[in-house]
C-alpha cells in the first residue's frame, strides 16, 4: 500500500498594526474603521503594537476588544505588544484585560506568538 498524502494549504492573514500617541475616544473611530477593513478582507490575526501609545482610555480599549471578539469567531486571535507608558497600560490592568489579551515581545518584523 502506497502512501496517501492529503495536503491542504492554509493562508493566515495577519494584520500588524503599530500605534503611536494617544488612543482615546477621539482617535478610536479611526482605528475602528481600519480594523473593520481588515476584518472585511478576512484578516483573522491581529497584532497591535502599543509600545509608543501614551494614553489609552476605555474607548480605545473597546476597539481592541471588538477586534478580539471578531477574530475569535474566525479562529483568529489578537496579540498586544505592551505599552511602555504606565498611562496606557493602566487601564488594561484595571479592567483585567491583561488576563485576556496575550502579550508578545516586539522582536522582528514578523511577530512571534501565533
Amino acid at each position, binding site marked *: 500500500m502506497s502512501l496517501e498524502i492529503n495536503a491542504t494549504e492554509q493562508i493566515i492573514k495577519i494584520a500588524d498594526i503599530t500605534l503611536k500617541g*494617544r488612543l*482615546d*475616544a*477621539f482617535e478610536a473611530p479611526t482605528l475602528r474603521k481600519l480594523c473593520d477593513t481588515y476584518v472585511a478582507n478576512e484578516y483573522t490575526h491581529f497584532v497591535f503594537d502599543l509600545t509608543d501609545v501614551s*494614553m489609552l*482610555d*476605555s*474607548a480605545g*480599549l*473597546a476597539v481592541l*476588544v*471588538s477586534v*478580539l*471578539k471578531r477574530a475569535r469567531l474566525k479562529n483568529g486571535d489578537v496579540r498586544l505588544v505592551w505599552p511602555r507608558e*504606565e*498611562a496606557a497600560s*493602566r*487601564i488594561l490592568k*484595571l*479592567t*483585567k*484585560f491583561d*488576563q*485576556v489579551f496575550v502579550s508578545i515581545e516586539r522582536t522582528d518584523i514578523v511577530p512571534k506568538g501565533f
Partner: protein
Amino acid sequence: MVLEISEKHREIFKSLASGWMRIGATCVQLVQDKEVLIGQPDTVPPFVPVLTTHIHGSDLTLNVYGNVDLHWAPSAEATLDLLAKLMTADHDLDSMTGALVETQDRLVALYELTQATRRTLDVPLLLDLLLQQSKHLLDVDGGFVVLKEKDKKSIIHQVSETPLHPAHMEAAVTLYQRDPNRNIFKDSETLPSSMRNVMMVSLPIRDEVSASVGLFNKTGNFTTPDIKLAKAIAGHIGAQLENAMLHKEAVERTRLETEMDIARQVQTAILPQTLPHVDGLDIYATSIPAFEVGGDFFDVIDRSKDSLVFALGDVTGKGMPAALLMSMSHTIIKAASRNMPFTHPHQVLDRLNHDMATDFTKVGMFTTVMLGLLDCKTGSLHISNAGQSPIYYLPVDKEPVLLEAQDIPVGILDTYKYSTQSIQLTPGDIFIAASDGFPESRNSAGDMYGYERMKALLASKRGECAKEIAESLLADVNTFCGRQPQEDDRTIVIIEFQGNSMKNLHGAETLTVPANFKDIRVACDHLRTLLARNNAAPEDINLCELALQELLTNLVEHAYEDNPSGKITVTLTYQPDQLHIATKDSGTPAIVNLSVVAMPEPHELAEGGYGLAIIQSVMDEVKHTYENGWNHWQLIKKLSQN
C-alpha cells in the same frame, strides 16, 4: 329715411301710372320731400297737380296731373299707401340683410382677432392688434389706449396715420371719466381740436389699472352698434392684456427672487462657518437671515494667540448691492484684522471708511459696524462702534449696560475719524453685540420687542454659556413675534470672558470646553499640567487624567449625545493632599446609581460600560447631582505625598 326706388317698385309704379292715364291723367309723380322719386313721364309739367295725396306720417306725396275726376282721390290715396308700405318693407328688408352681413363680417373679424392674440403675451403688440382691428372695423382715422396704474406714469399707445398729442388723448380720457356712461363725444367745444369725434370704451383690466380705449375721427358718426363692437374687442383684448401684464410681473418677480437667492448665497457664504476656540473665552455667534435678506454680517477672527477681533455690521438696503457691499466690507475688515498691525479698532474702521465711502455713496447706502479687539489673556477690550446697536456689556456683578455708538456709520463721510473706547473685562463678564433685528422685531399688534426687554432677558441668562444665551434670546423674540414674519436679519456675537484658566480665591481653576472628543483633551492636558506643576506623583497624574478622560467621554456621549454645541465646565481644585474635579453640563440628566456600578467581566468581551467603573476604581470619591438643569459631577482623588 330716403327710400330707394328699386326696379320692382318702378314696374309697379308704371302699371299704376298707366291706370291713372287711362282715366285722363297726363302725368303721375311720386315725390319725397320735394324730390321726384319717379315720374311718368319723366318731365315735370309746368302746372299744378289736379290731385295731391299725402301719406300720413311720411313725407311721400303722389301728384297726378291732367284731367282726372276727383272722386278717384281716395283710390289714389289707397294706392299710394300700398306702394309706400311696400317700399318701406323692402327698405327694412334690405337694411336687415345689410346688418346681418355686417354682423357676420364683424364676428369673423373678432374671431380672427382672438386667434391672433391668443398666444401673445406682449403688451405693446396686443395694444397694437386691438387698435388696428378697431380702426379697420370701425373705419376711424386712428385709436389710442391710455393705461394708468396707481402711482405710476400713464402708458399711452396709439395707432394713427396722424398721431395725436398725448395731452389730447388724456383730455379725451378725462372727458370719458367724467361721464363714463357716455361713449361718443363729438362736441367741438369740449373735444381737442385734433378730434372731430371720438368713441371711448374702457378696457377691463385689474382694479388697480384704469385703461381706456379711444377711437377717433370716424367718417360720418359713431353708432350704437359701433359701441357694442368696440366693447367686445376691448373685452377680449382686456382679458388677454391682463394675462400679459401678470406674466410680465411674474417674470420680473422671478428675476427679483433669483437676485435675492444669489444675494442670500453671497451673504451666507461669507459668514464664518466655524468659530475659533480660545482658552478662557466662550464665544458664540449666529445670524438668522430674514426672507428678503438684509445686510447683516459678523466675524470672529483669532488674530494670534492672545488677541481676538470680532465684528458685527449691518449694511442698509437689501438685495444684490447690499450683499456685495457687505461682502467687500467684510473682506476689508478680515484682511485688516489679519494683516494690519493695528492696536485700536478705529484704525480698521478708518481704513474701511476711506476705502469704501465712494462705493457706498454711489448706491446711496452705508453700513453700521462694531469692531472689537480683545486681549484674551488680560481681558482688555477695545471697541469702535460706527452706529451699530444694540451693544450690551454684562459685568459679572453689576447691571447690564447698553453701550451707545460713539461714531457715525461707515460710508457717509470719507474724512470722518473713528474713535475707540476701552473696557476692562473681569472673569465672568459678558460682551454682546447684536443687530437691530432683535429689539426692533414687532408682533402682530405692532409692538416692538424693544431694547429694555432684550436687556432684561440677557441679564436673566447671565450664568449660562454663550450659545444658550443666544438661543434663549432667539426663542424669546420668536415667541414675542408669534406668527409675524421676521422682517430683518437677526445677528448676534456673544463673548464670555472667563480669563485664561480662571483662578479664584480658593485656588480653583475653571475652564469650559465644547462637548466633543477632541476638545475634552484640553481639560485633560490642563489637569496634567496642574498636577505636574505641583509635583504630584506620576501614578496619581495618570489615574486622575484617566478618570477625567472617562468622565468627559461619558458626558459627550450620553449627556450631549454628540451634540457638538454643548459645553462642559471643568473646575480643578488642587490641594497638596487631594485633587478635586468638578464638572458642570446642561445635557441630559444622568440617571445612575453609583453604588451598583461594577466592572464588566473581561472574558465577556463587553465593548462598553467600563467608564464609570474605571472612575470609581481610581478615584476616592465620586458624586453626581442634578439641579436646575445642570449635571454636577464631583471626583476626589487623595494624592500620595512625595
